[in-house]
């Protein structure tokens, strides 16, 4: 099932064609490699524009990462790691 989280994570990113692409992130001591960014969107909190990325991991699992410019910091906001 999905877990709604608010876990700070370290994210390695790259700029491709002017866009940010998360490549891998560290969560709960594990490094998770991003196979694919399957979606992105934004949400505003006051003046801050939070950027969200839905990513598919190289193994199994899908995650939603959020870049919050107020830190700046990366947050893992949702994770699905198996089960229903």
């Amino acid at each position: 099932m999905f877990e709604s989280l608010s876990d700070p994570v370290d994210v390695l990113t790259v700029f491709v064609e002017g866009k940010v692409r998360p490549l891998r992130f560290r969560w709960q001591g594990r490094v998770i490699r991003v196979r694919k960014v399957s979606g992105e969107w934004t949400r505003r909190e006051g003046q801050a524009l939070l950027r969200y990325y839905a990513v598919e991991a190289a193994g199994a699992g899908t995650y939603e990462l959020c870049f919050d410019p107020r830190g700046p910091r990366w947050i893992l906001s949702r994770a699905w790691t198996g089960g229903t």
Partner: protein
Amino acid sequence: MWILLVDMDAFFASVEQLHHPHLRGRPVIVCGDPQRRGVVTAASYEARPSGVRAGMSLVEARRLCPDAAYVEGNPEKYVALSLQLLDLYLTFTPEVEPFSVDEAFLGLDPRTPDLGAAAREARRLQQAIDERFRLGASIGVGPNKLVAKMASGLEKPRGLTALDEEGFRRAFWPRDVQELWGVGPKLAVRMRSLGIRTVGDLARAPAPSLKAVFGVVGPSLREAACGRDDTPLVPYHRGVDPKSMGHEVTLPADSADPAFLEGTLLRLSDQVARRLRGEGFVGRTVTLKLRDHRFVTLTRQRVLEAFTADHRLVFETARALWREHWKGGPVRLLGVSVSALARHSDHPQAELFEEDRREGRLTEALDRLRDRLGEAALVPAGSLTHRRPLGHVPFGPPPARMPGRRPGREREPS
């Protein structure tokens, strides 16, 4: 001009399936927090054979479809994708009218010669949506908005139905009168009592009789039953003002606690008023929506003496309606909306007294603070005066347009 109605198939559920591949091919039900009670916001096509429909309670949905994935919806995500879809539509035609977050009317180039050519254009658009977003859309094509809208519902998902007026009659005249766009369940019951059972019956009914029974709406419904509609397509770059703004919430548990219910009403009123101010509107009619534990829904409204965007006035009116009509039983859902809207610039609120001016300045200062820090940064103290938290009332997205607000500098992720 030929018109298309593009309807994204099970949009919210499809977006979740797109972002989370393990959900593909499985029944998916998008809702509020799945751990709390609430209603189904959207169901994927895989979930629909079990009878799950939008608006159904989660308890009922879980009974019908226990194996579905219950996913908390994310309105910002759907709106962002909806805007990207509009950008795609605009590459086909400048005549784009968003109809909802997952539907839009498109007016094709007037030189499009016939229905066949319009259908080919619709197919091209459908393929472009699939290629760019990997999402399914059903498209209706017709000579007007009514035919396009109704045609879009004939074949789903990924359907394409093109009808001219004659085709519309063949397709819809044998169907139940309630299938006509604009005929709801109550109107359909009245029509059936007059022997009007199908769309064709309505088309053949004498206009004077319909006018006598249903008023001005009678003859226009007869026109609709014939597949005729002269509603103009209003491209969104020209803008259409909203008719009302409102918020509602299903409570985490039925409640008969007056302080809790009033606190919820205050939070809802505050959100509605903030949205009004943010988008530059004022309104004159406040509506309270109350659903009790038996699912009996009551809506009551009151017209104010003057236009307002003040949360206190909205709240006081909603609370007065609530105190008048609440019988003390457990409440399941509360909603507050303001309608009869007008542009604030057309109805500046007179501030005759120093106290009003002070209140006005205070509201502006608080709005500026929330623009900067977010909606949760400040809440009316009255919504905190009881022990139960109001975590069930989500903060809506901030107002879309902030007149006079300077765009904030945003840092790119690195």
